[in-house]
Structures are given as structure tokens and as C-alpha cells.
């Protein structure tokens, strides 16, 4: 079946501009996660959506970052007034929740470069 897809695969933007990153989770997966991977760094949790529950936004680094998930499926991560330190690979993952699986399935990521 189809895996997690993300678009665009690469995005170059000028400092100060807004960007939107999109994630399409695996069909039937109710949980969706955004992570950030900076050069040479591990994965930094950003935000977690689970069904209709309030999202866990505890990992968002500033109020310039926001995310939404429409219809329990597609998610958009928005970064306003981008800064150079926002340059990273943004990874989306999805998982089933009400099973004993727990593993997350990752998309290929969006590489964001802020110039």
C-alpha cells in the first residue's frame, strides 16, 4: 500500500517568507507526527495529532510554527517569517494507535533551506 507522502521534497525560501509543508499519512492511521532533523542532529519532536483530541504542540520551537490536520487525514505544517535556523529536514510520520504495534511510519521528508 501507499506509504506516508510529503510535499514538496525540497523547498528553498528567502528569510522572512512563510512556508507550508504537507503530509499525507497512511490511510487508516489516526496518529500523525511532525519531527525536525537538523544537519548532524537527531530527530526533534514538533507536534502530534491523534484523532479528534487536542494536538500535543509541546515540541513547537516558537509561535512562528503551527500545524493543522484537516478531516483527520492530511496535515500542513506552517512556518511563518522563516529564519535561517529553520533550515532542516521536516519529517512526518503516522501510526495506528489502538493496536499493539506502536511503530511509526515515516515519509521521505521535506528539505527546507532558508537563504
Amino acid at each position, binding site marked *: 500500500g501507499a506509504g*506516508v507522502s510529503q510535499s514538496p521534497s525540497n523547498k528553498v525560501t528567502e528569510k522572512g517568507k512563510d512556508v507550508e509543508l504537507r503530509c499525507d499519512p497512511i490511510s487508516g492511521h489516526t*496518529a500523525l*507526527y511532525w*519531527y525536525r532533523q537538523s544537519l548532524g*542532529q*537527531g*530527530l526533534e*519532536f514538533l507536534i*502530534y495529532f*491523534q484523532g479528534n483530541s487536542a494536538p*500535543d504542540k509541546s515540541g513547537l520551537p516558537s509561535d512562528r510554527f503551527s500545524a493543522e490536520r484537516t478531516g483527520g487525514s492530511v496535515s500542513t505544517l506552517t512556518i511563518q517569517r522563516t529564519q535561517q535556523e529553520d533550515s532542516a529536514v521536516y*519529517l512526518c*510520520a503516522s*501510526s495506528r*494507535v*489502538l493496536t*499493539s504495534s*506502536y*511503530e*511509526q*511510519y*515515516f*515519509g*521521505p*521528508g521535506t528539505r527546507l533551506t532558508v537563504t
Partner: protein
Amino acid sequence: AQSVAQPEDQVKVAEGNPLTVKCTYSVSGNPYLFWYVQYPNRGLQFLLKYITGDNLVKGSYGFEAEFNKSQTSFHLKKPSALVSDSALYFCAVRDIGFGGGYNKLIFGAGTRLAVHP
């Protein structure tokens, strides 16, 4: 707070030799542990997990990991390394968070495995 540590930034092994990538964890309660692999310019791929049961867990591509509760470790192993195993490996633990359905993962910093011919 839950955490994982990967003490080695890089591991180098010769093809055909056994490999070990180390991971230690700190959790309250029973740990749910995972290994993921990231090939260049790719997303993360799930390798294996420990939830409960047998301490030796077998996963994809011939990898296995041993859960050791007394040493709070979950080292990744493979009996015979291949050049194609060269990649970035991440250990992760499930965060307890709130509610039984909470599945946020906390990742280690990653270990780069280099297998040379």
C-alpha cells in the same frame, strides 16, 4: 523523563564482521523500544521493536536487538555486516505522555554505521 542515549557517533566495521550499535535508555515503567534506520536522502525505516516478551528481538535485514533490563540497554546487532548496511541508525523509546494511546517517540542522536569492504 524518558530518554535514550547512543554513546557512539560513529561505528566502523569491516564487511563480514559482526556489528553492534549501542543504545541505553531511561524510562519510568516498562520501556517500549525501537530501532530505525535512515539511508541517505530517505526517511526513517522501522527495523524492530521491543514491547514485551523475548529479550532477543529479530527485525528486518537480518538485524536483531537484545533488551537488557538490568543494564537498561537495547543494543542493535547483526552477525555479519554488509556494505549496504551503512546508514544512520536511531534508537527510540515511546514516551508515556498522557493516555494509553500516546505514541510519541523520543529518539537518540543517531549513530552512523560505516561498513567497509
